[in-house]
């Protein structure tokens, strides 16, 4: 087994295991830690695809910024365990899981039907660098780039207005 395949299986199985951990933990903090592991595993998968810039960005934005926000909110809410609350909607849960499994089967069939490609494109190593992404971002994607900055500003203002206490 070559190193590439071994790394793919390590990161892939790690990602699936930590994803299952995230949605099954009772304690929200344990779920958050599992999700951080999940993001690191995905960053490793991006590296196996030779997308270095996005792998670093994944760690900075998701494991850094977003998860700090989530952990802060968990701390502010000071939640207990879910165990104390009664469990209900079991039929709904079973149905939801069954429909999700059917959906996954459909996706698998669809993806298997795509023409097989065993190797990365020869251009892949140059595509993943900050240079080529920056080049495309500030030429072809200049308008979406500016639009996304406006979106972030709107989200910033909206989050502050939603979260601040009422001042009388």
């Amino acid at each position: 087994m070559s190193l590439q395949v071994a790394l793919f299986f390590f990161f892939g199985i790690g990602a699936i295991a930590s994803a299952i951990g995230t949605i099954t933990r009772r304690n929200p903090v344990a779920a958050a830690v599992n999700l951080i592991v999940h993001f690191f595993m995905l960053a490793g998968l991006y590296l196996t695809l030779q997308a270095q810039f996005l792998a670093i960005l994944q760690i900075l934005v998701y494991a850094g910024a977003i998860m700090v926000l989530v952990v802060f909110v968990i701390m502010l809410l000071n939640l207990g365990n879910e165990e104390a609350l009664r469990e209900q909607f079991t039929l709904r849960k079973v149905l939801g899981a069954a429909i999700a499994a059917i959906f996954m089967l459909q996706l698998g069939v669809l993806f298997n039907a795509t023409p097989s490609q065993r190797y990365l494109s020869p251009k892949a190593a140059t595509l993943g660098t900050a240079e080529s992404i920056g080049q495309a971002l500030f030429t072809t994607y200049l308008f979406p780039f500016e639009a996304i900055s406006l979106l972030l500003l709107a989200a910033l203002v909206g989050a502050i207005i939603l979260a601040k206490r009422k001042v009388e």
Partner: protein
Amino acid sequence: MNLQSIPFEWYLILAAVLFTIGAVGVVTRRNAIIVFMAIEMMLNSVNLVFISAAQFLGDINGQLFVLFVMAVAAGEAAVGLAIVLALFRNKRTVYVDEVNVLKW
């Protein structure tokens, strides 16, 4: 030189599995914060599809899309968590099935 020997479909099927786990999390959990984390997981599985498509087909556009998805996810995280905070302040709960003021 091509070092890679992992087929395209493996990445796509891995992404499908991760998306499904995220979807199951959204449907089955009651804690709004964990529902929120499962949504982030689904966004990430789509990112994996975008990046693998970009690298296997040799087209930069997929990676740019991932960049924009990340920016939208960051905005969504800020607004979503602010909504959870406001909800907790007004209703003293973060369990999604206990919030039913819009339901007749």
